[in-house]
């Protein structure tokens, strides 16, 4: 996914002289083509993220379109005040890119995990929060960010994530994408966990349950029209995210749902990371298994809720 980011920002940077790329001393080889194609517009700001975010806002306030790139905790919580004041309060069109988000860097330990970023960043006024499921959504999201007049947080994976969309013509922030139609239950996914979600839908189909799958690539603004549609039509709706169950997509949907309850009588489930730090090392797959974020665990949970719904 980071390669797709680099390729797209390099392609667009060649056309759009406003694009500036700021890196917190990472991506040594990754951005060589950008440096060649966009001379003077790559800034290695060093391991100094608070300053980097302020610099980006200053660039944006003077007509440029900066992308700030580093590992997710360092481009989000490390410099949260600069994001809040310099980017959001000033409504500066800074694109904040968190690479290796969620549990992508599971093996590096909790210093490099980011399971709180969606919750924190979506609470900031003016902020758009975008978590693409694959390289295609990412490319289209970068284009959407350049059309958007305000800060955007872009939560991406590392490399080797499976491609989800065969073809996708356009993407608008706040407009969910139906990845698979279905009638009885609905899985709302954000970010790179989508492959597991589609696997869960496959398993549900084998059990005779028709599962719709939606890519909620934008956690803020939330596609409330799509929520109304799926909650009206499906008996079980579940959010899935590689993020804490506190405050991410599940939290956002729960906030929308609460005042509508019990008018929306269907069952709502939220799959995400437990409210703990993972002290043991392990791969991303290990971490997903540990937190029940596998196709099988998701399918099992939804099937159980479906059985409870239909039993009554």
């Amino acid at each position, binding site marked *: 996914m980071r390669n797709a980011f680099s390729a797209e920002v390099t392609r667009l940077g060649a056309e759009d*002289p406003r694009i*500036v790329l700021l890196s917190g001393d990472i991506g040594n080889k990754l951005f060589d083509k950008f440096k060649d194609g966009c001379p*003077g*517009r790559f*800034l290695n*700001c*060093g391991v*100094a993220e*608070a*300053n*980097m*975010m*302020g*610099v*980006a*806002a*200053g*660039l*944006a*306030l*003077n*007509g*440029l379109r*900066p992308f700030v790139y580093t590992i997710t905790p360092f481009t989000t919580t490390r410099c949260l*005040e*600069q994001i809040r*004041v*310099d980017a959001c*309060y*000033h*409504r500066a069109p800074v694109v904040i890119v968190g690479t290796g988000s969620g549990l992508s860097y599971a093996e590096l330990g909790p210093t490099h995990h980011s399971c709180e970023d969606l919750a924190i960043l979506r609470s900031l006024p003016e902020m758009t929060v975008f978590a693409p499921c694959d390289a295609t959504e990412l490319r289209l999201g970068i284009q959407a960010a350049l059309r958007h007049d305000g800060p955007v947080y872009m939560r991406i994976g590392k490399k080797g994530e499976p491609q989800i969309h065969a073809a996708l013509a356009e993407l608008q922030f706040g407009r969910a994408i139906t990845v698979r139609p279905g009638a009885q239950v609905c899985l709302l996914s954000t970010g790179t966990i989508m492959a597991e979600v589609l696997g869960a839908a496959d398993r549900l189909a084998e059990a005779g349950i028709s599962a719709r799958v939606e890519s909620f690539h934008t956690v803020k603004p939330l596609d409330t029209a799509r929520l109304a549609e799926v909650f009206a039509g499906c008996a079980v709706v579940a959010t899935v995210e590689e993020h804490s169950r506190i405050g991410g997509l599940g939290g956002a949907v729960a906030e929308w749902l609460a005042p509508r309850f019990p008018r929306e009588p269907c069952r709502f489930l939220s799959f995400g990371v437990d409210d703990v730090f993972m002290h043991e090392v392990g791969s991303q797959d290990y971490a997903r298994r540990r937190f029940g974020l596998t196709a099988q665990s998701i399918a099992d949970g939804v099937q159980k809720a479906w059985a409870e719904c239909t039993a009554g």
Partner: protein
Amino acid sequence: MTALADFPTLDLVARKIRARTVATSQRTGTPHLGSCLSCIDILTVLYFHELRLDPARPEDPERDRFILSKGHAAPALFQVLALRGLFPEGWLDNYGEDGSLFGEHPPVPGHVPGIEAATGSLGHGLPLGLGMALSARILGRGHRVFVLLSDGECNEGSVWEAAMLAGAQKLDQVTVIVDYNKWQATGRSNEVLALAPLADKWRAFGWDATEVDGHDLRALAAAVAPARPSTGRPRAIVAHTVKGKGVSFMEDDNNWHYRIPTVDEVRAAREELGVPA
């Protein structure tokens, strides 16, 4: 820009701004008077002598940028901008009232002409200023960027992150002025953290640094003039100032970080400043 005013006139302007700032503090209950008074000579020299700025075109892309990183001195800056003609002085009539744009800190750009950044949380102005300077480099613009820091603000790590980037990027269009009044909110700035030697710190980060009397208008004007030929290094001016400068009973008394003057104190201050109501 050619000098707008001779030094006796600049002195009168500074005294006027001090008197208005003191009176507004009393009228509106706005604090940080000591912090405002310490930097008014600096603001006067910048706005009435050095900054390339057309009050009729406050958004001219070629304007010099000024960021009041010590945003709590906004009460002084608002008076400066009004007197400089960025907006009508009558705008300040509702200062501090519910719904007013004018309070303790600058609002975001687009509300008050001349305000480049909403500051108030310390340590933000220099990174923002570097972004503006880098934008000038990328866009081929010739403007300069001035950032006014407080000495207490130099506690913030982001100031020194920015200092290192400016040094690395050779941003010689950036000038930092530190309002070194030797106080921060609760104590002496050299005792709260190890601030001294301040000018040497900037030099160690790759900057040219000079020290001036921050109330000597001529010395300030010389210090902020563009270097010719350019040095390839950003510039830090450590301006030695007195908190509460210009009003004898406020000078170097840190109670005036938060205290609001009485009507009688405003009258006494105006008389001392030679700007009676």
